[in-house]
């Protein structure tokens, strides 16, 4: 008997996964990397998927009977198992299709696979959320970390042993191994340096904004307007003045400042990072209890002591929240800067668009998504870790 209300989110994910497995293609066999091809359904992929699929469905329904924390583990395991199963099945499907095909042929990932992965991720995530709930918070982070690690292990296994290395995406990677990793690093470096520059300017600006209402209006207004400028327009706007500058002053050219390339990219990205950082620094400082500030001043703290020993530690969680938002934003916008000649993961996307090669687009887009998620999770983790114990939510 269903004594507890079903988890609607998990149920939605399971239904999505099931429907897309039945109705949509698992993969497409194409004569070459650009041509259209024939869709192949999951039914052709054989029995490998049937096991995790069945396990998933049983788990989702069984979870409705479980206690909250147990439900979290059941759903997380089911989601992870399904992701692993899909990866392995896709590898097997790809391998079997490629056996009879010429070496120039490609197996692209089909819409059914993407939606199944999405469904599985939803199930896993709903379970993960249940584990984050208050009752099971005592179990700590360690238990919960099993699931992302298991997912990574499954994907690795599918690539290394499961034939996933035969799909088109892997082939695109194989062709560009030499530029892929440098592109990842360039992407991270550009976003990272811009974020640090944004931080170096944004935090002081936020501090001044908290002290002076006039500067606050200007700072928040200007950074807000910057945020509304589309990234492409911003890059375009920067080309002309930077080119003129470097033409007028050769010393700037020697320093690498030109109308295209990394310079306009870095300037644009730094400007985009400002709003979340300035705003959160200001809000964090403004929210410090005035009584705390009065007590600090009355006890003889100087402005600087008050700021660095009291106000900033109390504002830190919000400042880092701004940094997190900025980091996720920059990882995405960095891709666009490939258009003005800053070589990074975005370059694959634009090359793929130019060649009408969807799997090359994916080669750029997927790592960007992964980087954004890693930045998001990593910075939330850091924010939690540095939040003073006394102000952490109970």
């Amino acid at each position, binding site marked *: 008997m269903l004594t507890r209300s079903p988890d609607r989110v998990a149920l939605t994910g399971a239904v999505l996964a099931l429907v897309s497995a039945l109705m949509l293609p698992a993969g497409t066999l194409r004569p070459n990397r650009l041509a259209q091809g024939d869709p192949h359904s999951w039914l052709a992929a054989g029995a490998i998927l049937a096991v995790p699929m069945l396990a998933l469905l049983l788990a989702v329904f069984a979870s409705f009977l479980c206690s909250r924390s147990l439900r979290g583990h059941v759903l997380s395991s089911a989601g992870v198992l399904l992701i692993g199963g899909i990866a392995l099945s896709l590898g097997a499907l790809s391998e079997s299709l490629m056996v009879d095909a010429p070496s120039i042929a490609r197996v692209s990932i089909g819409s059914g696979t993407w939606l199944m992965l999405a469904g599985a991720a939803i199930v896993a995530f709903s379970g993960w959320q249940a584990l984050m709930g208050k009752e099971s918070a005592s179990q700590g982070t360690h238990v919960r970390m099993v699931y992302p690690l298991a997912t990574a292990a499954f994907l690795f296994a599918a690539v290394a042993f499961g034939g996933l290395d035969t799909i088109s995406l892997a082939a695109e990677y194989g062709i560009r191994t030499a530029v892929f990793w440098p592109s990842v690093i360039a992407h991270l470096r550009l976003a990272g340096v811009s974020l640090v520059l944004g931080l170096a300017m944004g935090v002081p600006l936020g501090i001044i904004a908290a002290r002076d209402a006039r500067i606050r209006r200007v700072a928040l207004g200007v950074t807000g307007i910057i945020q509304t400028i589309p990234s492409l327009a911003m890059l375009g706007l920067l080309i002309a003045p930077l080119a003129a500058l470097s033409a007028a002053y050769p010393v700037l050219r020697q320093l690498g400042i030109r109308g295209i390339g990394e310079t306009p990219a870095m300037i644009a990205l730094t400007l985009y990072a400002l709003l979340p950082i300035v705003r959160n620094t200001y809000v964090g400082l403004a929210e410090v209890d005035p009584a*705390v500030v*009065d007590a*600090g001043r*009355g*006890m*003889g703290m100087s402005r600087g002591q008050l700021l660095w020993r*009291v106000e900033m530690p*109390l504002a830190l969680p919000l400042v880092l929240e701004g940094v997190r938002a900025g980091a996720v934003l920059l990882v995405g916008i960095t891709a666009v800067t490939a258009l003005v000649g800053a070589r990074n993961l975005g370059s694959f996307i634009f090359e793929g668009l130019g060649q009408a090669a969807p799997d090359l687009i994916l080669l750029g887009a997927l790592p960007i998504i992964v980087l954004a998620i890693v930045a998001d999770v990593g910075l939330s983790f850091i924010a939690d870790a540095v939040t003073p*114990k006394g102000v952490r939510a109970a």
Partner: protein
Amino acid sequence: MIHLDGVTKRYGDTVAVDDLTLDVAEGEVCVLIGPSGCGKTTTLRMINRLITPTSGRIMINGQDASELKAEELRRSLGYAIQSVGLFPHLDVAANIAVVPRLLGWDKPRLRGRARELLELVGLEPEQYMGKYPRQLSGGEAQRIGVARALAADPPVLLMDEPFGAVDPLNRGRLQGEFARIQRDLHKTVVFVTHDIDEAIRLADRIAIMRDGRLVQYDTPETILDNPVDHFVRDFVGSDRALKRLVRVPVRDVMDTAPPVARRSAGAKEMLAEVGRTRFVYLVDEQGRLTGWLDRAQLKGGCTVEDALSDADPAQVAVRPDASLKEALSRMLGLGFRSIAVVESDGRLVGQVTLGSVEGAMTESDEHQGARPAEHMAEYSAEDTSDDSVLESIASDDQGDCT
């Protein structure tokens, strides 16, 4: 020690403090009081230069405050405020040690000082050192606010309604503890409040302010007996006789030999004792109050066990630090003619009777202006006769236990 000379503070056209001249002698508690907007808090904040006077001079210990560096001046003046303002990200020990840390004390000395001060304000150091402000009750936070103000042992304390944010019961207790601490430490204190009872209880001198001006600056006794004008008379209120009781700590008038029996001694001893005095307090082996036994309730063939009443000391007793007014209002509230006095650990140390309250009121009337406490001591020594027997007014109506 603190000397304000013609101090004025203007905000545009409004005058917050108007030509105020005031002397606070060393070791005295000066309470600034008045209706809201009278300038009392502004005055306090001008002393540690959180507000700069428009004109006039403030001398602290012979030195012109405006000539010192503001931060250094403030570190030498303890500061406690109504909203406490503990630093949420620091634990209690670190909160107490803020000023000593600014002064560059070393770590072991900081910890030792925090421990010392927690004990002084009546909080168990081991239990509280590592707590964070959000884990504290309002009363605990205010205690720690006071401990923090005392941390660097400043000669002067500035307190802006430091007990204003707690319930009346806790406020009374904090006032009692403050009076006790002040008796030992003899700080020069400037204390802002809007509670006239608090002012009368704690002040050596009360400065009554109105519209930025000083209306009367006198001892509480003088203010009660000779208010300079209608404003002061109205401000003090009509129950001036009762207010005098606020000045008298229970400790000074209590009967230190109340009728008492050990609970463990058994019915026989309790009966013997109650036969002699009609009423006994019952204590445990450690001398802690656990209940009482009233002869009136033994009527109608009740056993001792039926007749004795259990006591929750928090409800039916007062502390030696409490004021006589508090003791009286407790007695009236409970319908008793006497009330037990217990230490913070629950030990019974005495009792206060309606008779001794009455005596205290007449005594202080006869000796206007004198410290009532000294006379009370004599009085209570004489007054350990039969009328100190406690009768429960309420118990007269419930003579049997059917």
